[in-house]
């Protein structure tokens, strides 16, 4: 079976390398320099700063996973929260039941999320992309309903993770900073290599014209399923760390469309066609959300205090604006458009 696969995807490389000269080493250099810039934050800075960067890396990992199918492949997945939630609940359950540590639960969390993603993918990825979008959007809600009605997972009240150990809050913040950083680095490396591989070219071909890609021999179902699989495994791993990080998870908080909104904003604002997009987007979105959170209570309109949902309102408006008018995100500003777009 290996020979047909090479033929199937070989064509994608040939046509794509013809129009676009990518310089992977420049990207790698950029990635390493960003990493060296953020690394010092983990040493001796304040807890709030480290926690904020942890959030950046959490969303970065989720967004890199999302971007494979959503950004490159054009299949928008609104169930990010579901896959992260499955990872979080798997980790929490394994920890409370068998006293597994964080390290031992990351892999099961990722596997559980990936298995769920296969079930979802088989049912929906054969359809046109907008059915996939609606189906995944309502899946998050199903996740919340199912978990709320499972007493073994704490039901609606949620699960506490009993973490012991004599850690200072500073060392905890530092620990999770590096956990999320490591995951974000792994996710970014995966995204980088996918983007510069036949797999990535096949995904881009699918987003441009799926029927044409199929005709040219790309096994679209396989490729889409693989992208969803990798993305949700990353989501599950991020969820597992998140469960230990917050040490309390409840269905309403974790199976929440807000996570999907944040992840999509990260990709859309950063740029959906490049591994660099989520990196930039994650910083921008988390800083933006933090400042909105600080700013909104201090503002008042006609003497009335603004409710916290105002921040969400602004994020929603931002998504509409970026989706319609700045489709290539921040990364798009720095890239000149190479090659040509042909349409038939």
């Amino acid at each position: 079976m290996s020979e047909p696969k090479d033929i199937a995807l070989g064509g994608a490389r040939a046509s794509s390398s013809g129009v676009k000269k990518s310089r992977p080493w420049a990207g790698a250099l950029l990635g390493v320099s960003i990493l060296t810039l953020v690394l010092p934050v983990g040493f001796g800075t304040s807890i709030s700063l480290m926690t904020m960067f942890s959030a950046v890396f959490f969303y970065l990992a989720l967004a890199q996973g999302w971007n494979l199918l959503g950004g490159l492949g054009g299949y928008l997945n609104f169930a990010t929260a579901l896959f992260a939630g499955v990872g979080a609940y798997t980790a929490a359950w394994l920890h409370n039941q068998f006293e597994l540590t964080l390290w031992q639960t990351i892999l099961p969390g990722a596997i559980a999320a990936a298995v769920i993603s296969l079930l979802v993918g088989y049912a929906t990825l054969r359809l046109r992309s907008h059915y996939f979008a609606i189906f995944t959007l309502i899946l998050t809600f199903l996740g919340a309903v199912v978990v709320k009605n499972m007493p073994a997972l704490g039901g609606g009240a949620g699960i506490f993770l009993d973490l012991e150990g004599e850690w200072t809050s500073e060392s905890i913040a530092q620990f999770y900073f590096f956990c999320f950083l490591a995951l974000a680095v792994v996710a970014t490396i995966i995204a980088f290599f996918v983007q510069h591989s036949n797999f990535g070219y096949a995904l881009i071909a699918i987003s441009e014209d799926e029927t044409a890609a199929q005709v040219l021999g790309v096994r679209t179902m396989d490729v889409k399923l693989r992208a969803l699989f990798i993305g949700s495994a990353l989501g599950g791993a991020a969820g597992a760390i998140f469960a230990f990080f917050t040490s309390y998870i409840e269905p309403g908080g974790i199976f929440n469309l807000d996570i999907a909104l944040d992840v999509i904003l990260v990709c859309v604002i950063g740029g959906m066609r490049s591994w660099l997009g989520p990196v930039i987007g994650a910083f921008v979105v988390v800083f933006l959300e933090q400042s909105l959170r600080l700013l909104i209570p201090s503002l008042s309109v006609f003497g009335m205090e603004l409710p916290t949902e105002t921040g969400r309102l602004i994020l929603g408006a931002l998504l509409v604006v970026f989706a319609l008018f700045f489709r290539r995100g921040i990364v798009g500003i720095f890239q000149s458009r190479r090659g040509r777009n042909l349409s038939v």
Partner: protein
Amino acid sequence: MNLETVAQLLGNGLLLGGVYAGLGIGLSLLLGVLKIVNLSHSAVLIFGSLIYWELVNTLGLDPILAIFPVVVAGFGIGVLVHRTVGQYMVREDSRTMVLAFFGILVLVESAAIIIWTTDTRTVNVGYLSQLVTFGSLSFPLSKLVAAGLTVLLMVGLHLYLTRTLGGAAVRAISQNIDVAQMVGIDVTKISRRVFGAGLGLAAFGGTVLAMVVSFSPQEHPRWLAWSFLVVILGGLGSTLRTLSAGLIVGVLESFIGFLLPFQYIYVVLYGLLALLLLVRPQGFARTKQREL
């Protein structure tokens, strides 16, 4: 389970199904005619419910008459949205459109929560809350009215789409928008009306939903799931099939709710949805729709 229970469950299910058909029709129209995936469908729907609640509970309007201003407002806002951003969105690729509609979903939902908070609300339907008995069966009048109005509306819409010249133009746009323009149909004007009708019908779904159940703004994805199920089951392109799909979903929910604990409804109906998407994504439609 005796015959009487079965008859009562069937009746409840059909009435509920009538309401569910009303939830799906706006989504179906936009998807079928303009190929727009209105992800914000259920958010608009719940927004309609909340305005309806405000009209009936706060202003004390008649629960049947109060439907009209909500639907008209939905239509008007739809036309306005189409005039400003909608007509450009239609020409975008479907990914951009879905992203923009997700943004609109968040906008509408946040606005609803800011105005009405996350409380669960029930519309005080007044004289509609009395029971109507047929022999040994009894149904609340509100459900009868909600289902009856939906059926009337859908039959009317079906007749409009199949028997009139205006309806033929809408169907022409749904088949091939470019050719429709070539033969002299004012595509922009009719698309605008259809877009308005899509949101107006979503608002209508919100009002009939509010007549029969309690609702809260943040739980709207549930109604998106139900609407989507109705649309998938009915397939695109026929109002009457959408109606029958709604009835089937209602009857199923009624019987499942009787046989199993209520939370299984979600699992069973989602399973049904996944199964349908796997084996028959075109719904009841006899032939697969051609895509160009």
